């Protein structure tokens, strides 16, 4: 199995790569369209700001490429948000793989934003697997995807939101599996073992 990690101006590409290294997975970090297209699995990482990242993806024609992929694709953090239709972060049109709007967290009772740290996820009988239900994973984000028909796991901060999504061959997590200890490792493995 060969995994392609999409290379672009995102912050956490290296940590995703190290997590794959720990899992002894054969991977490359690449923005070559050919290489991404022929990989068995694709990971779309991301830490950063939505509009500048979308601009970068468009400039490198990675936006159309990502949408066209047929193999399992995993979006991580900003990667997940960019897979949605639109983000309130600087009024950004995104890839539209998931028909959702990414919203800004509005504190209700002085909760701190960004949502940062370890929080539990409730998996809704989904690809993440029963073994990570109610386990803690590591989040860092100021925007969220509301719960919707493609939600694969829910977390609670200010209100319930999508901790994970899945639609066809597109998988996504709002948290950082690469920084979420054994639980995160299990989730990465679930994705890597997925068939479609």
């Amino acid at each position, binding site marked *: 199995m060969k995994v392609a990690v999409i290379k672009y101006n995102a912050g956490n590409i*290296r940590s995703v790569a190290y997590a794959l290294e720990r899992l002894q997975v054969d991977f490359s970090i690449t923005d070559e369209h050919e290489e991404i297209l022929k990989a068995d699995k694709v990971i779309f990482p991301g830490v950063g700001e939505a509009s500048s990242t979308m601009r970068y993806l468009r400039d490198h024609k990675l936006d159309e490429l990502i949408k066209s992929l047929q193999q399992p694709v995993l979006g991580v953090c900003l990667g997940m948000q960019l897979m949605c239709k639109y983000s309130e972060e600087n009024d950004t049109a995104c890839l539209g793989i998931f028909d959702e709007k990414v919203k800004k967290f509005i504190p209700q009772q002085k909760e701190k934003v960004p949502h940062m740290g*370890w929080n539990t996820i409730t998996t809704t009988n989904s690809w993440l697997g029963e073994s990570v239900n109610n386990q803690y994973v590591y989040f860092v984000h100021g925007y969220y995807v509301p719960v919707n028909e493609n939600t694969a796991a829910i977390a609670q901060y200010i209100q319930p939101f999508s901790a994970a999504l899945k639609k066809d061959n597109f998988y996504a997590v709002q948290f950082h599996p690469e920084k*979420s200890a054994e639980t995160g490792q299990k989730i990465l493995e679930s994705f890597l073992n997925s068939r479609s």
Partner: protein
Amino acid sequence: MLAKRIIPCLDIKDGRTVKGINFENMRDAGDPVALGEKYAKEGADELVFLDISATQEQRKTFASLVNEIARHLNIPFTVGGGISSIADAEKLLEAGADKVSINSSAVYNPDLINEMAKAFGSQFVVVAIDAKKEINNWVVHTHGGKKATDKRLYSWALETQERGAGEILFTSMNHDGAKQGFANEALEKLHHALQIPVIASGGAGDYGHFMDVFTLGKADAALAASVFHFGEISVPQLKSYLRSKLISVR
């Protein structure tokens, strides 16, 4: 629910952990990577690696050490010590650090906070504040607590937040090393004044101090060094103690 975080802090000099760390079942407690992995396995939520090297020569090894840590550690970690420019921070980001902490350099060049937040995002920028209570004022100190400044804790903390700090790491110099508990009163004030998370540091001596810092001090995270390194407090036992007190921990 968002968990309260427990953060062991490791001091690094010339690429090795210091403070005479003494562990059974560890072949090399001076190896920061092995020690970091041990804490991660035990359930530490984050780690801080502080480079206390005195010379540039000693400091050279730090970035490559950070890279080794990033390869092995599956939890977030912050690195600090001697970071005084965007270039310094970028080197550590490149090496795989999740966050950097800046202290003296932020006091003398506050614009550095803005620049770092803009370049790497606020989530990458931890501002460490060492302060000492003198009569009614919390006086901010630099250079490892050796130098008093004209800055005061609350106004400085607010300013760093305005400038884009993602977290405040507050060390009470009055409490540090005394093992009599954290500076809960000041921490609670910080909690109410700020919108960003506060990491409490200085004063951990027993399990109860951690409960107090989360309930009375309202801290988002608690950092300690020697109580963990000398085995006086074990991370798994601390977690189960806090859980028994109904504090949300991982």
